[in-house]
């Protein structure tokens, strides 16, 4: 029997407390509406992150693994990746993916919103960089972003905090880029380089992707959520939504979810906002079948779950004779290069990629990686090979733009279910020839940079399997209900009180980390909702 969570319907019910759910909750809070957010995970504690402990590296293989199928927390749901060369990685908890993200925080480029117009592929977004520009700035201030103004690859912007340290890795690789005459710039990072809004600055612990013990990494549990809760938003954890329900008029009237005791509950709501990422959102929509919507909710276009975009990733590594102190400092944030970001068809592919320079690994990971790639033997010679690599490495991640293709999908697995019996998502994805060529080009250029920087040895590999961080495109926005799921401000074409604010709504994905753009779009949608409150469902 379904328990009713409260007698009163809430005005706004948000599903998911990650990057976009936090932003939309905070923005809508000033309306004084009754807002409730349901999050399937827990609050995290900084004191429990791995870098508080000596076995911090080992925990990345277990409870803080980025892959939910390995991590297997009670709050995770399984994902069937068998049909994909890229595994979905995520985190389920207050803060969502921002708990374990690297915090690399670039914005999409203006050209990313007009891909069809400029390059004749995919589709244009119905909104532009200029539409989101004020929200990018607002989000940078809310999150606490460090960076440097003046990048010639962007329209003018001013990060609120100075850049995080380049370190020896950044300086060394930057010299390589300068030798080749290629672009580079200190990364915009959602990591505070100075004390900011009551949080203390980064301590250069290293492994941001297992959570930040210092609280310097800007995850939304310590940025947006405290302010949203102070403003009256209610956040309920350990609440896993199964489906969205409809009233007689075909409007969303609430959700059915399982609480922390596994009890089935119903929460009535006037407006439902989905913020569950590009896999979680289509999962719930497809599971919300009814006589009116037999193919899943908001799916008259048939596009819910289709056009899944990842960012195919590969890495090049360089070994340097000089010590670079590689394991110190934010691992995924240092400098970046946009030299090959914009389309140049002479390269053999359309669109482009971002080069993300990252620092080295800790000792355990160095030893394991060295064993796996045959560079550090066990037995005699171990120490010599280890010392040659540890703290002597610089890495370049090549992050490619993936174009939308309807054959890349999120569907419901017919057999696999989570602990509440909800069907698990099934991923079917094929790397396109364009993406393959782009990745090969990027890895070759990355090795070229490392050699120019003085590397004595380089290697590269990709496609990386455990790199499905960026989950985009599975409920795309657009003006035409036949070719999109939501309108230009995130409202479902089919269900007028249902909104989507996460990466699902991306029309194209650009070639860079999307969190900044996801949050800017969520703030824009929230602002548009506020401006249209009187006729929100017209």
């Amino acid at each position, binding site marked *: 029997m379904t328990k009713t969570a409260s007698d009163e319907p809430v005005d706004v019910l948000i599903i998911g407390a990650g990057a976009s759910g936090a932003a939309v909750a905070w923005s809508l809070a000033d309306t004084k509406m009754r807002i409730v957010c349901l999050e399937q995970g827990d609050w995290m504690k900084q004191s429990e992150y791995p870098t508080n402990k000596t076995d911090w590296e080992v925990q990345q293989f277990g409870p803080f693994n980025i892959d939910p199928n390995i991590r297997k927390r009670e709050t995770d749901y399984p994902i069937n990746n068998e049909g994909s060369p890229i595994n979905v990685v995520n985190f389920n908890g207050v803060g969502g993916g921002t708990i374990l993200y690297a915090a690399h925080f670039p914005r999409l480029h203006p050209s990313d919103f007009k891909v069809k117009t400029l390059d004749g592929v995919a589709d244009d977004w119905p909104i532009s960089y200029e539409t989101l520009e004020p929200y990018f700035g607002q989000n940078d201030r809310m999150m606490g972003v460090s960076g440097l103004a003046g990048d010639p690859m962007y329209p003018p912007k001013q990060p609120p905090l100075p850049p995080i340290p380049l370190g020896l890795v950044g300086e060394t690789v930057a010299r390589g880029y300068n030798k080749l005459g290629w672009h580079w710039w200190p990364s915009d990072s959602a990591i505070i380089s100075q004390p900011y809004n009551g949080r203390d600055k980064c*301590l250069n612990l290293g492994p941001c992707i297992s959570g930040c013990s210092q609280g310097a990494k800007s995850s939304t549990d310590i940025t947006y959520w405290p302010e949203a809760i102070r403003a009256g938003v209610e956040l309920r954890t350990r609440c896993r939504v199964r489906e969205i329900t409809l009233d007689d008029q075909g409007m969303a009237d609430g959700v059915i979810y399982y609480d922390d005791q596994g009890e089935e509950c119903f929460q009535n709501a006037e407006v439902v906002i989905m913020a569950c990422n590009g896999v979680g959102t289509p999962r719930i929509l497809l599971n919300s079948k009814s006589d009116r919507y037999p193919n899943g909710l908001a799916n008259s276009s048939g596009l819910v779950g289709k056009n899944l975009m990842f960012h195919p990733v590969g890495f090049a590594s360089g070994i340097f004779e000089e010590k670079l102190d590689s394991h110190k400092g934010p691992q995924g944030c240092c400098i970046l290069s946009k030299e090959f970001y914009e389309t140049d068809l002479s390269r053999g592919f359309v669109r482009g990629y971002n080069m993300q320079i990252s620092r080295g690994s800790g000792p355990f990971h160095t030893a394991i990686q060295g064993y796996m790639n045959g560079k550090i033997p*066990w037995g005699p010679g171990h120490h010599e090979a280890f010392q040659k690599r540890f703290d002597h490495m610089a890495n370049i991640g090549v992050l490619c733009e993936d174009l939308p293709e309807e054959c890349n999908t999120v569907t419901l697995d017919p057999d696999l279910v989570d602990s509440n019996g909800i069907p698990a998502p099934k991923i079917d994805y094929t790397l396109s020839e364009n993406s393959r060529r782009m990745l090969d080009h990027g890895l070759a250029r990355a090795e070229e940079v490392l050699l120019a920087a003085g590397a004595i040895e380089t290697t590269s590999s990709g496609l990386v399997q455990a790199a499905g961080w960026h989950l985009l495109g599975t409920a795309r926005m657009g003006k035409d209900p036949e070719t999109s799921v939501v309108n230009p401000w995130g409202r479902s074409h089919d269900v007028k009180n249902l909104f989507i604010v996460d990466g699902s709504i991306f029309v194209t994905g650009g070639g860079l980390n999307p969190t900044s753009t996801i949050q800017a779009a969520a703030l824009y949608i929230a602002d548009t909702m506020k401006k249209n409150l009187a006729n929100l469902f017209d």
Partner: protein
Amino acid sequence: MTDLISTDHPLTNPQQQTLSALLDVLIPADDDGLMPSAGEVDLGAYVNEKSRDFLPALISITDEFEAPFAALSFAERLEQVRSWSEVEPELFQKLLMETYAVYYQQGRVLEGIGSKAGAPFPEGNTVQSGDLSLLDPVLAKPRGYRRV
């Protein structure tokens, strides 16, 4: 040298001696004595505390390399371990993972490789801010994004 303290050890003394001789092959001490052998680490206690699922396999491994393995020369032990790693690659890899995991947590090891012992937090690390004048050639380049 292990940082672990254990009273109820999961391995018998002969098993511990065998395991120590085995780990000594996986990561031998270096010539100048700066880096210890993995045989000095109490892997049995570590697995018992942190990775208990692996304990039965670890015991069976030590039984496989029963006496007189510990009394063999390094070269003989190396040859035996190499042969076994080819017969049981998955088990070998798991043993290696666990060995590396505990070895590279040891304070003496971390100091030997020039890293800090213990948890990274709260001490953290110092990283130089870097020379932003390196950006001068980048700033001299024309605007690089496409206007729409």
